[in-house]
């Protein structure tokens, strides 16, 4: 299998765990995997991206523009920022809830994310999820990374089986959070499945 998966968001949203689980799952299924992170500074709130490249045919650690099969965007503005990586027939899974820049109160930009969502809708095939809504049953926005992973897997575009991801979640999440994370993943999986129906 050859697949380029880009994960983007804002520092502190848990993008790194999502990319680690994807990379480890693909490896568990026997693929060669390369990945890279744009490591931010110690302060929070900057844009972050993880590039996961599955398959023998990838040399650059970063995904070339127009190559990503799937983008997992934890934030609509960041989805637009990274849209250049998406293939024409690729898919973007996008959180509709915007994260305002930390400098917003000082330099108001009026950024709400709605224009970005509309733009994405007009440009590529997307599955939209609202982190506010989907995280509610789990009581914390911290589970969004696992939910969006579920959406991606459920859409069938990730190329990794449900069971493999569940096994990796078990390996990588602290004991007492395993069940909630599995439930979060399965909730996302359903959303993904029904979105492509």
């Amino acid at each position, binding site marked *: 299998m050859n697949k380029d998966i880009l994960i983007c968001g804002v520092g502190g949203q848990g993008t790194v765990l999502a990319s680690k689980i994807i990379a480890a799952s693909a490896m568990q299924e026997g693929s060669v995997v390369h990945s890279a992170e744009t490591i*931010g500074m110690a302060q929070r*709130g900057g844009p972050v991206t993880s590039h996961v490249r599955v398959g023998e045919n990838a040399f*650059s650690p970063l995904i070339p523009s127009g190559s990503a099969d799937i983008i997992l965007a934890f934030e609509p*503005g960041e989805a637009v920022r990274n849209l250049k990586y998406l*293939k024409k027939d690729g898919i973007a899974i996008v959180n509709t809830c915007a994260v305002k820049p*930390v400098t917003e*109160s000082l330099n108001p930009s009026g950024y709400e994310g709605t224009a970005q969502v509309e733009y994405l809708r007009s440009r590529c095939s997307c599955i939209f999820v609202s982190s506010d809504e989907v995280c509610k049953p789990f009581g914390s926005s911290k589970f969004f990374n696992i939910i969006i992973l579920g959406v991606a897997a459920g859409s069938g575009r990730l190329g990794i089986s449900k069971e493999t991801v569940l096994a990796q979640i078990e390996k990588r999440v602290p004991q007492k959070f395993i069940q909630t994370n599995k439930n979060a993943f399965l909730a996302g999986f359903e959303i993904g499945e029904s979105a492509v129906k």
Partner: protein
Amino acid sequence: MGNGAIALGALAAGVNLVAGYPGTPSSEIIETVSKYPHEGVHLEWSVNEKAALEVAVAAAYSGARALVTMKQMGLNVASDPLMSVAYVGVKGGLVLVSADDPGPISSQTEQDTRRYADFCRIPVFDPSSPEEAYTMIGDAFEYSEKYGTPVLFRPTTRVCHAYASIDIPDKTSPKEYDGFIKDSGRWVIFPRLSYLNHGRIEERNVEIGKDFSAYSFNTVQNPEAEKAVVTSGISYAYVRECLKNRSDVRLIRIATAFPFPEDFVLGALDGVSEVLCIEELSPYIEEQILKTAGMHHLDLTVHGKLDGSVPHNGENSVELSAKILSGFPGVQTANGQVDLSGSPALPVRPPVLCAGCPHRASFYAVKQAMKGQKAFFCGDIGCYTLGNAMPLDMVDTCLCMGAGITMAQGMNYTNDGVCFAFTGDSTFFASGMTGVVNAVYNEADIILCVLDNSTTAMTGHQPHPGTGRNMMGNFVEKVDIAKVLEGMGVRKIVTVNPLDLEKSIKAVRECAAEKGVKAIIFKSPCIAITKPSGRCSVDSGKCINCKKCIREIGCPALVTADGKVTIDRNLCTGCSLCSQICPVGAIGGEEHE
């Protein structure tokens, strides 16, 4: 991670001692060693890069294998011992990893470690992936011992921070070695030794160049093609990505830029009339090819940075390589992107001091105390460089590690006004102390502000001599900054908690009123490594919506919702700086958890 691969490769090579100073993109090498079994290996964060290298040199003189890690600018600090040890040579393998940062992404310069290799006349290895880095670091130790010379190892950011899977041995053990054998004719550098060794080194480098000509990571693909691309490091990965499935371009990769593998290059270029050099940072390989072409009267056109085909600055990418190659062999770049036209404006997300960062409070106190007075603020390297941003605007200069202290002195001698130096605790130990002695001795009138947050925050929270913990896992006596300053002759030293605004302002005023070198230690831990003390909230009944808190300190947790000031509970750490600023006392009510 590439840095992890370097660490594991060194352990597999039986490294006995690892020392370094944190710096992006190199810091995870030492952190990886500490996380894997490394019994019998001495591991340390040294106070700076020069110290790290000198510690390692003695180990290598004793026959042990030593690894030193730093970022490229750290090599400037370590260049003094490096140049000399290059003359003296080593017995055990000595490999110095200096991670370059094209872009630059998190550095002050775009310097090229390969130039240091040439300058010091020592070999350099240049991996293009984490897998290669793992193997090459072992090779670097072999070459170091084979030729008795220190060796440079130069990954770049994208190699350091890329992940791949590698197989590692179950168990590694440090190398057996003899220990130091006294021989002053060998280990004591004197002019005559340097003269003799200089001659030997140049002869030896011809040998290494021949040896490198057979090195497995110097490679040629498509040897039939007449047009050639010469590349190195991560650019090799990018160019390969562009030239997938192409057989009409000869792809030459040089993993050992110095000593230049001339025989290999002559063979690789046989039958080529036009060559394009794609490399990051300086046109090092390009210049060597021009030199080789000149010496051997080759009929060869060389493209690259020197004729404008390749940009001098910034990092390379698949996209840029494709653009460069499009005018040469011609590559298809149409990868089928989605239509990107009409993109809406995107939010800018600049790095800012965290909510609750004690540095914000320190800067604010100095700013308040100096209101209406002329003052100069010499900053330094660390998170606190971000104190330059509005609304604080408290960093007038930033040059290199430790320069804040000495530059404040120069400011003082040439300007009227109160001169401040800001330095972090780790920076103080790394290269601030000598500057303080200089200030005392040369009678400067400066105020030194040590922003002591008990960690090396910016590079990922490494311990240092003031934290009482070292990389051998031991608790050690903390080196007390106030006592150090006292011992160096600073007469007035005040320690305050910057989160107590009134006391802090008073301390600054007091110091400004006195002559000589004064020091204020603003002591409060980095909030990224401590538990928040609580949360603050705005009493909407009291708040007059003057927005003073937002305007003055720029804490990211202070936000406006529906035109009213509120505090983002997820960000606030309860530092209470804002509550001390509010003119009507509307902020408070620390909700302790």
